[in-house]
């Protein structure tokens, strides 16, 4: 067992110190990530805390938003927030919290989220990956795969759309005029529906869809088998071992040990 204080996945250049470098450092002292033998560090404390703050504000904004989107269906959410009008009053603040925390995460993840040729390759193989025909992700899949990157950039775009249209809706027609509000309302809703569809896939993939993923965001560590299966290039980068070879080795061990 070893306690790691290294920050993986986001090796920012030493020349310019970003303002979240200090935060990432101090969060490692506030919490800790235990990486057991046979595991790899996936997400440091700072990333996890920011992720769950984003999640918290996302769901607060989502549930208050539901009661503005379709009150006939979601009116039963509103008592949790003090009724319809208070849901409406609090929704922009929750949304602002979501945008701020996602902004921190975007800064944190900017580098590993850059689109590469490996991602275009992953997209071409997406059918096989989704259907389960491909047991392992393509060998060049890095720290994040193309699906994760797509969702990340969708949320970046969504946040910008939310922020602009949200401010217009917040101040209302008496400040911005009738037509900007009427247009913002549609864009805000479309953005929300896309993100809602995305969140179903996100939660499914990280829990039921690919078992072993959820601990990456709670404990911060994943098994080596998880790494070579879903992010082979990242596995190679961290351990220096060939993912295919490591998998075959594990398979041999499994078959010999299961024989009487």
């Amino acid at each position, binding site marked *: 067992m070893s306690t790691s204080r290294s920050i993986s996945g986001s090796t920012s250049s030493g020349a310019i110190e970003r303002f979240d470098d200090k935060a990432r450092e101090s969060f490692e002292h506030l919490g800790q990530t235990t990486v057991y033998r046979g595991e790899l560090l996936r997400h440091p404390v700072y990333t996890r805390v920011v992720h769950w703050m984003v999640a918290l504000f996302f769901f607060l904004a989502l549930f208050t938003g539901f009661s503005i989107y379709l009150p006939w269906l979601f009116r039963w959410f509103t008592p949790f927030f003090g009724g319809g009008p208070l849901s409406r009053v609090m929704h922009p603040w929750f949304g602002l919290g979501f945008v701020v925390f996602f902004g921190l995460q975007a800064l944190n993840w900017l580098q590993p989220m850059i689109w590469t040729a490996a991602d275009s390759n992953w997209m071409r193989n997406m059918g096989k990956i*989704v259907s389960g025909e491909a047991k392992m992700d393509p060998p060049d899949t890095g720290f994040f795969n193309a699906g994760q990157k797509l969702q990340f950039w969708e949320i970046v775009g969504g946040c910008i759309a939310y922020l602009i249209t949200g401010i217009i809706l917040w101040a209302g*027609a008496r400040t911005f005029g009738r037509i900007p*509000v009427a247009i913002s*309302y*549609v864009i805000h*809703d479309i953005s929300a*529906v896309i993100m*809602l*569809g995305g969140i*179903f896939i996100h939660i499914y993939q990280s829990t039921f869809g690919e078992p072993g993923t959820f601990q990456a965001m709670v404990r911060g560590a994943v098994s080596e088998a998880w790494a070579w299966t879903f992010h082979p290039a990242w596995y190679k980068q961290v351990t220096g071992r060939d993912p295919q070879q490591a998998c075959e080795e594990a398979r041999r061990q499994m078959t010999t040990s299961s024989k009487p």
Partner: protein
Amino acid sequence: MADRKALQAEMISGHSGPAPGHGMQRDLEVCKLVDTTTCIGCKACEVACAEWNDLPFSPTTFDNTYQTMPETRWNFWNLIKFNEHQNPDGTIQWLMRKDQCMHCADPGCLAACPADGAIVKYANGIVDFNQENCIGCEFCVSGCPFNIPRFNPATKRVYKCTLCSDRVGEGLEPACIKACPTGCLKFGTKDDMKFIAEERTKQLRDNFGWKNAGVYDPQSVGGTHVIYVLHDATDPERYGNLPSNPQIPWSYTVWKWLFKPVLGTFALFGFLGVVLHYVTSGPRRTQPEPPAKDGANVNV
């Protein structure tokens, strides 16, 4: 039944089904007729409105006109708009227009409102706000072409003229009508008011030289249940920004009734999709998986 007949709901904002009273009984559309040519700007209607509705008074702003305040407020639903209009020949006109909710046949506020039952249009044409269902989103403000709904920051809900639905439901005329001393305000069925208005504009054209006199009953919102007789119907803007072509944004008509439920269903399909994925192709497990049991049905 007879008493409640006048207040059958015909359209309900954000409602998931048909309005319960739609088309159930014959009902006459009511209408308020405002003859701007005979209004003397006495403001009796303003007082009557505040009195009948028990609206609390708040300080006004003087803007160097004969107008009580610059625009209507959440506690002031009926305002005589004043404009000193200069004609091309140099003569001036003092134009008085009673500004209040127009009670559109096709209400933009109701189209924009997402809250179930917050805005109701009765079969008699009255458009009414039910504050207990209002969530204070103020979308109605952007839906209304006449700039009528007013937000009360204390209650976080919107308010406007009710056309005295409480009085009309009991067979009485609205309070403003009752207070008017010159007869410039009239109340009755839409057909009757339309007839009187047309007669009056004919009189204005034939006997008083107002060549462009006309009735303001904008068809772009399906007609209104408050109509005006204007000296010059070609330029309603001069009467305190009365829009010549009031419009409801397309986003409220197309988006809300078509795309919104359709896209909401797509989000539901997103949920169904992942559930179906789990029960059909199942999870992707970390490799290597344990070897399949002998004789087990393993595809691919």
